[in-house]
């Protein structure tokens, strides 16, 4: 269970807060999704979780324990994070890259144990990334790279997964593969916290949605609760309607063409 409790973040030199008293819970066994327009604070939330921004107030708890700066490694054993951007500087083999997911479990000198190797194998199998093992990460396509990153996060072996826009650059098929995998991991008991722009897919897969707007929680609840035309239109500042997905019946957003001027 990841709990973000009353967290506020203000970037240096900014008048307004990037996050303003935000509380979010991502319990085990549930796919929890955070959505919202650009600049609403979604990525700041993830950066706060990995300690890359200072909290002005509030705290973050994992399974009831408050996360502190000197507990980063212990946190990494429980929560794996796939950040929005990751551009590797140097060539690294795909297997070596996935193995770095075991970093928080290793000492300075101790090598990999059979448990580490098993976690790596399982992650590769779950994410179906074994075809890429002979390659280096700098030569993967966008879709392959996202899946290999996911494999690294799964290899980390915690019981919580946080992902910031994991399906950016992915085509429909690859996007669905990722959503299906996240859904499966949640069903297996992981706490999955997903930050995404893909409202319609999130509405189909997530059990709980949080809509952020200007650093605050604008709406929260089941997809049916959050996917309300009036709320979304105000938050995204664009005319839209919410219908029902004809195939599966999930709420589905359809943006309209621009309002006529005048």
């Amino acid at each position, binding site marked *: 269970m990841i709990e973000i409790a009353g967290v506020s973040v203000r970037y240096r030199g900014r008048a307004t807060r990037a996050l303003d008293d935000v509380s979010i819970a991502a319990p085990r066994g549930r796919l929890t999704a955070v959505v919202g327009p650009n600049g609403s604070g979604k990525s700041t939330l993830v950066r706060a979780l990995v*300690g*890359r921004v200072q909290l002005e107030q509030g705290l973050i708890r994992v399974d009831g324990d408050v996360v502190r*700066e000197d507990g*980063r490694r212990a946190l990494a054993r429980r929560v794996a994070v*796939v950040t929005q*951007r990751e*551009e590797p500087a140097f060539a690294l083999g795909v297997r070596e890259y996935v193995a770095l997911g075991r*970093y928080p479990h290793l000492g300075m000198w101790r090598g990999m144990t059979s448990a580490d190797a098993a976690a790596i194998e399982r992650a590769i199998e779950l994410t179906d990334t074994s075809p890429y093992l002979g390659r280096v990460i700098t030569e993967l396509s966008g879709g392959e790279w996202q899946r290999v990153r996911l494999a690294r996060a799964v290899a980390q072996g915690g019981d919580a997964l946080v992902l910031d826009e994991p399906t950016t650059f992915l085509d429909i098929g690859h996007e669905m593969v990722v959503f299906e995998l996240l859904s499966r991991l949640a069903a297996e008991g992981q706490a999955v916290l997903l930050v995404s722009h893909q409202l319609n897919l999130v509405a189909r897969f997530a059990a709980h949605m949080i809509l952020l707007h200007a650093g605050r929680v604008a709406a929260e609840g089941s997809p049916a609760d959050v996917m309300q035309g009036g709320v979304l239109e105000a938050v995204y500042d664009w005319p839209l309607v919410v219908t029902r997905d004809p195939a599966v019946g999930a709420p589905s957003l359809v943006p309209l063409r621009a309002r006529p001027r005048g």
Partner: protein
Amino acid sequence: MRASRWIVLAIALVVASLAGVTIGTLRLSPAEVLHGLLGDGSLVQVAVVRTLRLPRVVLAALVGAGLGSAGAALQGATRNGLAEPYLLGVSGGAAVGAVLAVALHAPPAVVPLAGFAGALGAVALTLLVARAAGGQGDARVVLMAGVVVGAFANAAIMVALANAQDNVVRGALWWMMGSASDASWPQVRMLALYVAIGIAVLLAFARAIDVLALGEDTAAGLGVRVARVSLTVYVAAALLAAGTVAAAGLVGFIGLLVPHLVRMAGARTHRTIISAAALAGATLVVLADLVARVARPPAELPLGAVTAIIGVPFFLARLRRLA
């Protein structure tokens, strides 16, 4: 990296070292070298091998190992293939220290120590500037702070040398161009200890460097305390380079070039990259020192100039692969 490549690296270092001990103004056969090493040859053979050539070869190897491994660690931690340990203020600071010592007519033995002190001062200044700018753990800020401190140091040297006497300029320039010619066993022992500790520290952080090379956000997510680990690696790499500067002056290009060479040879994780860079750096500097000694006898070429001359074609080849 494949096992065969490790063997090639090790053999290359052994061959280069044997060549360094064998070749010189006084030509010795391999048998004579062996007798010299064992101490049962003629007095001249023993003196040349044991007190002139061998310490010089070992010193050159240590300098290369230190610079190569420091460059490898630094390029990984900063995610930047243009990073090298001299860039953190080491070279500029060392030169300022050495020039001051020469200008103040300090005895020759003091010049390396002054260079070392200058390097330490400049590294401290670089990190302070980066900290004042609010980015002590941020690779880009630290590298830019190093560039600023280096530019300031260069300006200081030019001012100091503008009106200096010819012999002062010459002495300072010679030291800045690098040389292993003053090698002695006590110096080798000190440097060996220093380099061994430095490389051990870098190897202890090798896995953290692997993770840092993925980017700071990802590293934080994997439990690396980014600012603290980065700073440790910067300081360890800079101190390692400063130690080599005290022993042999400025030997350019090794810290920049060698990490690229070992990555081209297939080294991917930093435990391998740092270790292989130590071996390859040692081999290159031993060879460069051999060239410096025998290219134009009886005069010696500056070691730093030879490493640069060797380095440029390697780097051009690397550029071709990148383009």
